[in-house]
């Protein structure tokens, strides 16, 4: 599988990353180098091998249904680059 300029543009869009037009081609080259190397995984027979979902042999922790958090609106807003009256603000989103 080979990655071209358009593919880089498409995945950059999916990742919401502004990649300058002149960087698309070189980036495609870099990614291809990496994907070509990764292709060696194709050598391994993985039929019937389960995909790993967790390296630790442990049961998922369950929390009690208690209200223990929140009430932090001020602290939540201290790092906000855009905010008004405890709301985060962004350029208007048109549905």
């Amino acid at each position, binding site marked *: 599988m080979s990655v071209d300029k358009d593919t880089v543009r498409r995945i950059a869009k999916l990742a919401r990353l502004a990649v300058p037009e002149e960087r698309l081609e070189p980036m495609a080259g870099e990614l291809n180098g990496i994907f070509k190397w990764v292709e060696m995984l194709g050598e391994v027979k993985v039929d019937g091998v389960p995909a790993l*979902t967790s390296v630790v042999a442990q049961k998922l922790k369950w929390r009690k249904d208690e209200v223990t958090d929140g009430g932090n609106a001020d602290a939540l807003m201290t790092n906000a680059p855009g905010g008004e009256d405890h709301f985060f603000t962004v350029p208007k989103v048109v549905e």
Partner: protein
Amino acid sequence: MSRTIKGQNLIKGSSGEWEIVIGMEVHAQVTSNSKLFSGASTAFGADPNSQVSFVDAGMPGMLPVINEKCIEQAVRTGLGLKAKINLRSLFDRKNYFYPDLPQGYQISQFKDPIVGEGEVTIDLKDGTSILVGIERLHLEQDAGKSIHDQHPDQSFVDLNRSGVALMEIVTKPHMRSSEEAAAFLKKLRAIVRYLGTCDGNMDEGSMRADVNVSVCKPGGYEKFRADGSFKHLGTRCEIKNVNSLRFIAQAVEYEARRQVEIIEEGGTIRQETRLFDSKQGETRSMRSKEEAHDYRYFPDPDLLPLELEQAWVDAIAKSLPELPDEKRARFIAQGLSPYDASVLVSERELADYFEDLAQGVDAKAAANWLNNEILGRLNKAGLAITEVPVTASANNAIIRMISDNTISGKIAKDLLDIVWTEGGDPKAVVEARGLRQVTDTGAIDAAIEAVIAANPEKVEEVKAKPKLSAWFVGQVMKQTGGKANPAAVNAALKTRLNLPDEG
């Protein structure tokens, strides 16, 4: 369950008839104190961002820890939908960017949901029932809320809802009319409310439906049910966030007609997401969702697989309340009509009220009393069953007084009016105001004599036309202030006027 399609479900197009096929995805907010993966409150209507933990806000380094109540509620709901509970399920990340999605992904369940296939029976107005298959139920996080009308060029983001647990319930495409779609949602709402797993409050967004609509030529659906192949069905459109039972019917009707028109004009239906505009009563394409979706699902590495023990699931199954279908069957066995039974079980509070009301009395009489007297008065006053001013046990006492001839049916209605507005114990009111039915033949005979004396000409008329005896009954009732037992009056009149037994 196979059945023949009724003519009124078909849409008439210029080229012939079309059939509607409907599937639904319902988002039901799990009833819990705190969120799915954080300890922030789920209460409705709080100040902006006041119920947000740093986890819900997607702050760096924050991690999800699952709320056991939400797991239990999902399992409880699954059991209520007669569905398979998966003892191992996985949480996946659904990746996309939106201002009210703080993590940049929604934690959901994609490949391995907690609940698998189940079914819901829906009862239609014509007395028939159909089964709607449930494809799956999974747990996921709700997003926050973007408010677009507070500022000319900014959207405001409130994350109070962010992270609240939702159950997404997906049906198979087993509904074939707007009536069925609405009936399904109503039934589902009743089930989750019986279970206590979702409050079903559609106004507050606790229950929201996305409706998938397609049209096909008659017969296509049967072929689909026979071999399971979607090729027999038309291309579907998903109508987002239809948030009332009324809108569901409107949205389905509009969308189906739109699709038929397009096809008949030689066009093709594009699979897309559409929004129902309740003001215009139409659906329209959501351009913002048109961009190619690629959610890049993968198992959330912050969480381990969710594993349940069968014994734990069994314990929940044992604790399930009686659900609408079982209750309905029991009510029918007690003598109620299927229609009355369906109405009574549609709300758990109504069914509970009915059961208290019907304690030790004839079920049919209790149902009639509830339908005609109590619900009639509630409707007039715009009140819900939870706000009824007369307790079920007081009404039970009234019904008992009717059945043991203490009071007449007519007096019973007056009595209900009195306790409805003034309160009080019905038995005490009957005694205090002398409303007891008169069964004493002496008193009835006296009243008859008085009526005969005042209307001698009528006596002759009745003798000629025995059917006119009803007039005499009415007069005697009037004479006794409605308290005379109508049967006793009838019998006494027959004797006194020498009327034949059957007239």
